[in-house]
Structures are given as C-alpha cells and as structure tokens.
C-alpha cells in the first residue's frame, strides 16, 4: 500500500544568478514500511527534494508543478477534514474504477463528490461521485495544501532529520527541554508529564540514557547528539521519516551503530524511511529501494539488489564503479570525466550527456524520461545499459 507518491515534481530556486533547477520532474512512490534511499553527489538536489516534500522551503523557492500524495486509508469519519482539498481517490482493487485526482467538493450522505482537475480541457469535467465503500485510500496532495493544514502533516505525518541537525542544538537549553518544546507545539493536547515519559522512552529506543535529557548539548558526543535528533524526529510518531545525511559527520563505528538502530526502530514501528546520502554504501545498507539523483533529476530507481547487479543508467554504473570497496578484489577505479552540472544552466537534453560514455546525438537534444527497464526498475536514459 502506497504511503507517499510523488509525481512530476519540480521545484526551482530564484537567485541573483538565475533560476536553480534543483528538483526537476521527479517521480517515485513509497510503500508503507518501506525504506527508500536517495543517493547523488553534492548539489544534485537531495536536500531540496526533501524540503519540498515537507514544503519547508526558503522564500526564494517555488514548487512549479507536480503532486505529492500522502496516502491514508479511507475512513468515513475523517472525510470531513478533507473537504475542499486536492485529493487522489484510490478505489478498492476489485472495483475496477480508475483512481481520480480532483478537489473534494462535497460529501452527500455516503458519497464523495470529486471535481477532477481541468488538465488543459476547455470545459470543466463533470464531478465524479464515489460511494464510501468503493474507496480504499485517499491521497492528500501536499503541493496545493495551505500552510495550517501542512503543519498538521509535518512531524506527525512526515518528520525529518535535517542535514547537520546535530550541530543545531541550542547550547543554552537542556536537550530534553528542546525536544519537549517541539512536542508541545505539535501535540498540544499531550500533557508535559506524558511528553516527558515519551521522550524518556524514545531516548531508550535510540540508545541514550534517559537521564541525558537533563544534560546540555555540549555534554553530548557527536553520536549522542545525532541520537537525540533521531529521538526528536520520532517524537510525534510519524509515518515517514526523511533522514538527510543522518550519519555523514560521524565516525564509522558510531555510524554503523546508529544505522543499525535506525533500521531496527523502523522495522519495529513499521515506519517508512527516506534516507538521503552521498554514500552509496550507507544507502545500500539501509534501503530496500534506491533512487539515484543527478543534476536535479531522478535518473534511476530500483530495488537495491537490482541497482547493484544490473544498473540501467550509465551514471549509476559510474557512481558505483568509482567507490572503492573494502571487500572483494582490489581493482582500479574509473574516474568520471568532467564536473557535476550547474543547475542554473544545465546541459540540454540529458543532463549527464557531457560526461556520459554512452551519449549519442539524441541525448544532447531530448530529455529522457523515466521508463520501466524491468519490473521494479525505472531509468531515464536513451541508451540504457540493458
């Protein structure tokens, strides 16, 4: 069952030098309980992607198009809350009807009325009606969602471990109090006592002594700070956690421990995860699916095994063969020529073409789209490796 579906999402930054095409027509979906790894070089738009999903963007950023559907099982009693929002209704499997995207305009007894999007047609399409029993899932589109509604999705629905978050603890407050404050703002109904108990549980879960709650950030080591950040991300029981470079600044032994703990917590709570890292080895350890980003685009998405055994995109292959390995035979690494693209004026056609050994004429002119290469593997390339 899908939890998150991203379709055709583009987000650009406006700067003095021009428009930074940081996220460009990205699409993927994530099942409940699944972990997805996003891998790519510095500046390819991984963090931007994550911030877009949470709509935590700076002022100079704008989502140009696309949808982010955050799915929930349909429950008639919560239908009222969705009134007026853009939703994607997914009918029961057996039903045979197609899923419908549109604005939820009315609830009539046991029926939902959806006004489908215009999609370029001159005449507005007529509303579609679904009976409650027909609907399996409702996907709330986060892109047009108002900020007040979005705040209810953040932390409780999707939470995030920010890049270098472990360095952003406020040095003058106790770590426990900082988490408490965040919880109080997002879950105002829980009492302080309850929240504190919860934080103590979370500390235990991430391998910290609950007594550390009373300590200040400078009394924490790097690994402990990062553990506290994870506890904070878990504090509102999210269904999805986006972890942006959760272990990059840590030493290998600590990194390994934290990654294992995160994986365990994820299994235990049946959470979905999106791991973001530039290190494909880290991603491979924790993710079931891997998405490879290059120059603001998702160029390949497949399950981990497939990515390693049969990469379809030349960049994926290059990325993999440029990583030194600790196990197996020692072989000469192939360096990729050139530099990562400038996202203000990226190369025409396929953004990888200036560096691609397989590039042909068509690559310079036309932008490849994600195509299915084999079940569970999509890649955007005119001359895929298989």
């Amino acid at each position, binding site marked *: 069952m899908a939890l998150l579906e991203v379709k055709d999402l583009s987000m650009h930054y406006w700067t003095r030098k021009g428009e930074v095409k940081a996220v460009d027509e990205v699409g993927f979906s994530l099942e409940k309980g699944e972990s997805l790894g996003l891998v790519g070089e510095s500046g390819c738009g991984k963090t931007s992607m994550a911030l877009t999903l949470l709509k935590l963007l700076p002022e100079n950023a704008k989502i140009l198009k696309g949808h982010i559907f955050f799915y929930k099982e349909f429950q008639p009693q919560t239908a009222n809350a969705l009134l007026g929002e853009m939703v994607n209704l997914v009918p029961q499997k057996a039903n045979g009807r197609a899923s419908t995207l549109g604005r939820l305009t009315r609830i009539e007894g046991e029926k939902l009325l959806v006004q489908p999007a215009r999609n370029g047609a001159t005449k507005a399409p007529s509303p579609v009606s679904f009976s409650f029993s027909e609907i399996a899932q409702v996907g709330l589109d986060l892109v047009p969602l108002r900020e007040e509604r979005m705040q209810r999705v953040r932390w409780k629905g999707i939470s995030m471990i920010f890049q270098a978050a472990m360095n952003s603890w406020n040095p003058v407050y106790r770590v426990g109090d900082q988490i408490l404050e965040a919880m109080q703002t997002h879950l105002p109904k829980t009492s302080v006592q309850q929240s504190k108990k919860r934080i103590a549980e979370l500390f235990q879960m991430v391998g910290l002594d609950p007594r550390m709650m009373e300590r200040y950030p400078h009394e924490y080591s790097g690994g402990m700070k990062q553990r506290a950040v994870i506890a904070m991300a878990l504090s509102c029981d999210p269904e999805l956690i986006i972890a942006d470079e959760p272990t990059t600044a840590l030493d*290998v*032994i600590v990194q390994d*421990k934290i990654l294992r703990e995160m994986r365990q917590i994820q299994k235990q709570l049946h959470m979905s995860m999106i791991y973001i890292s530039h290190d494909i*080895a880290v991603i491979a*350890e924790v993710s079931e699916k891997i998405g490879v980003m290059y120059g603001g685009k998702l160029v390949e998405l497949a399950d981990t*095994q497939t990515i*390693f055994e049969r990469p379809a995109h030349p960049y994926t292959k290059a990325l993999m063969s440029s990583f030194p*390995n600790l196990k197996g035979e020692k072989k000469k*690494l192939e360096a990729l020529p050139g530099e*990562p693209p400038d996202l203000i004026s990226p190369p025409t056609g396929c953004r990888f073409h200036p560096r691609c050994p397989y590039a042909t004429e068509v690559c310079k002119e036309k932008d490849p789209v994600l195509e299915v290469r084999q079940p569970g593997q999509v890649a955007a390339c005119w001359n895929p490796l298989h």
Partner: protein
Amino acid sequence: MSNPEQTNPVIIETDRSTSLVRIQNLSKTFPVASGFFRKGNSFIHAVDDISFEVGEGEILGLIGESGCGKTTTGKLLVKLETPTSGQVFLKNTHVEVKLPKQKAGVAKATSAKTKAISLVTSDGFADIAHLRGRSLKLFRRNVQMIFQDPYESLNPRMTIYDICAEPLSVQSIGSLMEREARVAELMDLVGLTPPETFLFRYPHELSGGQRQRVAIARAMILNPSFIVADEPTSMLDVSIRTGVMNLMLELREKFKISYLYITHDLAVARYMCDRIAVMYLGKIVEMGQTEDIIQNPQHPYTRALISAVPIPDPSVRRQPMELKGGVTKPINPKPRCRFYERCPMATQRCATSDHPPLEDKGSGHSVACYEV
C-alpha cells in the same frame, strides 16, 4: 613513555636502505585550555610515542577516527608543529645541517661532537628538529603537505597562478618566465588543461575537485620527495574523488614520491596505500601491509573498525563487532592500554600493565595488544 622497552624504536622495515622518513618515539602534547573545570597540568596526548618509517615511493596510510591525532602526526612531519619529544628523521642529501662551531676547549668539542651525531645518523638521515634558516628552506622544498579542505587551503585573493607559483617565489627559484612555464607544466600534469584557462582564475571560480588539483600542483611544484596528504579527498564528491586519487597514484609512479596518506576511510586507504598504520588516541595500534590489515586484522580496534565499514554491495552481509562507549579525548591518559575502556577482549593484564608495545607478529605486521 615510562616503558623502558620503548626507548628503542621497533624496527618495521626489513630493508632500511629504502626508507625515506623515519620517526622515532614521536610525541606531541597540547595543554588543555584551563577553563572552569580543569586547571593547568592537563594535557591532550595528541600523538603519543609513535614510531614508523615511510619507504621511498611508498604510500603509508594513517587511519583512525576523528581526533586520534592523524593531522597532528602529519604536521609534525612537515614541521608545522614541533614535537614534545622524539625525532623525525628525513633522508635527504639536500639537507645541510650546520654543526656548532668547534671553538677552543675540550669539553665543548665533545659536546659539539655528540650533537653532530644526533643530527645526522650514520646512514644519512637528518633530524629535522634542528633545521634553521637556509637548510630549513631547503627542507621545505623536499617535504610538502596537501590539506583536507580545498575551500580553505587556497587563498581566495590570489589567482591560481599566484597560488601555484608561491613556493617558487618564496624559494626564489627561477625567473618570472621560468616560473610561468613551470606552473603551466604542473597544471598540465594535474589535469587542469589547457592551463591558460585556469591560470588567472580565482579559487572560488573552481570546483572542489579542481581546487584540490591546484593544491596538488602547488605541493608538487618544488619536486618534493615526501608529501603528507591530510584527507585530500574527504571533502570531494564521489565522481570527482576517484580522479584525484588516481592522479596521486600516477604522480607516485612518475616521480617516486612517498606519501603519508591520512584518511578515516578504510576503503580509500585500501585503494591508495601500500601499508596502513591504524591510530587510536595518539597511539599506533596496528601496522602492516594493506591487504594484511584489511583481510586479517589483529587488534580488536582494527577489527571493530573494519567490521563497521558499510559495504556497497547488498549481497555481502557484515558481522559487526560491538564496542562499548565512544571515542574520548586523550587527556592525561591512564598508563594502560588506550583501548581498554572499549575493548571486548580486555583482561586483567591489560588493566594493570602499561600501553602494550607495537610488536612485529611476523611479515611486517605489527600489533600493540597483549591478547594477540
């Protein structure tokens, strides 16, 4: 250092004639800034009585976690820091060591003689601690350093040409035209081609990988025989990193340069180095041929370290080894094994004895542990 066994360095290299750098019982302590809690008398033992050799044309990897003293070791070797005790010997014919003038008086003459012996060993090594003036300048030509952060190691107000030519100009080598030619040659060598397009740009106009190539060109321009490379690729992107690593390997082949290659990434160390020394809290705990260390680690710390490295291959399952606690700072360490608090194999002996000496366990693989 109270251990009498360690006053003589452990001899690792069998063929001593090929070694270029030899360090003996090198230590460096920093006083801990006296804050509210600690007053005076506290020292960080950043580098604690280490000895090793680097052969000619050899790449010795120095690996370890953050704060274990890798950078400090590197800086001691290039004389950016002065050792608290111990010596760094460099084999080099260019080094001229000024001997104290032998004036009248027998007593003085003998003291001068002993001094001379400690300066230059019989097999042509000189202790770099005593270099001054001109001989120090000549030493600088021979030993260079590449820094970790390519964004901070190039002066933002200087052009690439000025940066690369700086060693030539401070050493007063060559005319202006010759310097230009030499810089262009180096740019070619490090793959910044054509040189004309790079020479008059500023560092901020270059990417990270290009900057690190500039830093390599600057280090290479004086034709050094030994380079300390302090995590030269850790800040670079994956696709760029390989190019820089390959370049450094090529330069070694071409010019027979020796490197001390500092890194925290074991996979990188495996790719780059002939031998590896593993550091833990200022001590070298294991040293040997790269493949030996990777395939057959002996010291419990090395084993934990290797077992923790993620493998970019989902079909390989690792057996991680659990360690207690985290890395601490080596402030006034107790006289016992530095790894004792975290060691899963520790015994009574480890608790009561001094830090174990680094002992050769055969075929140049040495380990500092009582239980191996």
